[in-house]
């Protein structure tokens, strides 16, 4: 038992000594925290307008007000509170969109990669066709058809991005199915489905972890783009892209309306990408051998 504890400690140290992983992890935790607790920690109702207090600058600037930490927008709404609520949209889309995109993509990839032949041809050609639409255009068209709303944004992201999982994982499955332990599994009479689930799937988990974090970043960007052009959530739900679209009109008088949501998006996406990178370094045994931490 002492050995197990020690091993866990060594493992934990390896994760924690990776700067990218730590930074990305903190960003992710922060996002989860704000999106869960937004109603409790936000100082104002995000939609509360105050015509007498529009475009108040952040508190440290002249004319700033401590009750509006990051100032107000052109309708007098509290920017900080809107950012907190905006993280809910971002996280919902990142988590739900990524989960289902991954589920669809990975399932199809496992079948395509494992059975090859006709099944693979069918799935892969379909992916090829799907991918040949520009993703942003496809999501805009989808939103126009589906209408606005949080679940619909997530659905659009799922429909656009499952192909990314499918492509990458299929290649990895191709690779794994040729390895001897698959033959060995057949030689002890395991069935195909069991081989896929028990022998192949665990071996794509490291790659999948990385893809998931990348995809979460992408989902946040896509949502921001859609809400920027007004095709995402309803106007009553604060989202970062919307805030940027609004702030763009007042960029010369009140930069904070646009800059803070932009910083949120950049930090989130950068954090998630670095998390993916860090995870790859920590999880990939080959990089360990090269002396990387």
């Amino acid at each position: 038992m002492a050995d197990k504890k020690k091993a866990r400690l060594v493992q934990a140290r390896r994760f924690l000594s990776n700067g990218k992983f730590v930074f990305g992890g903190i960003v992710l935790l922060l996002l989860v925290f704000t999106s869960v607790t937004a109603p409790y920690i936000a100082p104002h109702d995000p939609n509360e307008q105050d015509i007498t207090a529009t475009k108040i600058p952040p508190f440290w600037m002249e004319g700033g007000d401590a009750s509006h930490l990051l100032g107000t927008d052109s309708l007098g709404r509290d920017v900080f509170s809107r950012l907190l609520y905006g993280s809910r949209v971002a996280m919902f889309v990142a988590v739900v969109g990524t989960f289902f995109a991954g589920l669809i993509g990975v399932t199809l990839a496992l079948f395509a990669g494992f059975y090859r032949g006709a099944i693979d041809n069918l799935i892969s050609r379909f992916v090829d066709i799907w991918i040949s639409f520009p993703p942003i255009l496809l999501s805009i068209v989808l939103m126009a058809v589906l209408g606005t709303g949080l679940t619909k944004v997530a659905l659009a992201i799922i429909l656009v991005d499952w192909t990314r999982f499918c492509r990458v994982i299929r290649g990895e499955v191709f690779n794994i199915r040729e390895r001897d332990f698959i033959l060995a599994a057949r030689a002890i009479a395991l069935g195909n489905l069991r081989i896929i689930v028990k022998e192949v799937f665990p071996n794509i988990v490291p790659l999948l972890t990385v893809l998931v974090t990348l995809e979460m970043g992408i989902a946040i960007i896509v949502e921001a783009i859609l809400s920027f052009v007004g095709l995402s959530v309803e106007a009553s739900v604060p989202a970062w892209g919307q805030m940027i679209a609004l702030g763009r009109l007042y960029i010369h008088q009140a930069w904070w309306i646009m800059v803070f949501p932009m910083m949120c998006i950049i930090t989130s996406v950068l954090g998630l990408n670095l998390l993916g990178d860090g995870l790859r370094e920590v999880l990939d045994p080959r990089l360990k051998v090269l002396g990387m931490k």
Partner: protein
Amino acid sequence: MSDPLLSIEKLRIYFRLPRGTLKAVEGVSLDISRGQIIGLVGESGGGKSMVGLSVLRLIPEGGRIVSGKIVFEGKNLLSLSDYEMRHIRGSDISMILQDPLTSLNPAFRIKSQMLDVLRLHKGYDKKEAELVAIELLHNIGIPDPEKNIYKYPHQLSGGMRQRVVIAIAFSCNPKLIIADEPTTALDVTIQAQILRLLKNLSEEYQTSVLFITHDLGIVANLCDRVAVIYAGEIVEAAHTRELFLNPKHPYTRALFRSIPRHDRKQEQFQSIEGMMGIPIDWPDRCKFYPRCTEKLDTCEHTESVDFLAYSPDHLVRCLKYQ
């Protein structure tokens, strides 16, 4: 003689490729008696692995068993349903592959990989299976099995890993084990240990072994009988001692000559001239003809040489002995 445990009869395995038909295995016949260790020797690409895989009906996609029979305990394996076949795999016939690093799943502990077979074929519950697995590891010479069973494959050395693979292969008391170059990926000292282990286990459990290798040196110590395969055809088969003392086929002789020996002064390593090549659409004559140093004038135009008995128990496929 009693009925053999496994009898391969005139097995043909073809691959249809864009360039033509690759005859990976062309009319191979082979008998294995109970408790016997048979060596199948040949160079890379000679079809020896295909013979091994075909016994479990696991030949790669694209390959087709065109004709022949594989009779195991009176049943023709080639005519069984997939369901019946799965009862045989891992239970009556199991397999040891070349590289223990790749034949164990890197994502799982040794324990779960061992329990898979035991639970599937023996119907043990988790607890029983674990006890049996630990017992097996102990018998197979893994120190501290209670602890090592919780390790991942990469935490064990190559020799240890191959011991685990052998333990899995023997875990359901199979009647036949197909060992496809099980020691090629190991260094020589470990190789000797693993071979001794395999031989002891085979004697202890009365398990027959089809031992596939390119190394004649291994065959000498391990096998009861040896078959030499070239380009999908068995060219010579005999008792090990007979084959070593009295090799008849030019290919077998060439193989013996190419074993480096310190007692013969040689400037260079001897090798067999030329390459085997890929048997796609080859003319229907002795496959070794292009590289043979002992060929006769008649060889080129004589069709498909059949097995000739040089002595009752020593078969050769060569015109010289007709």
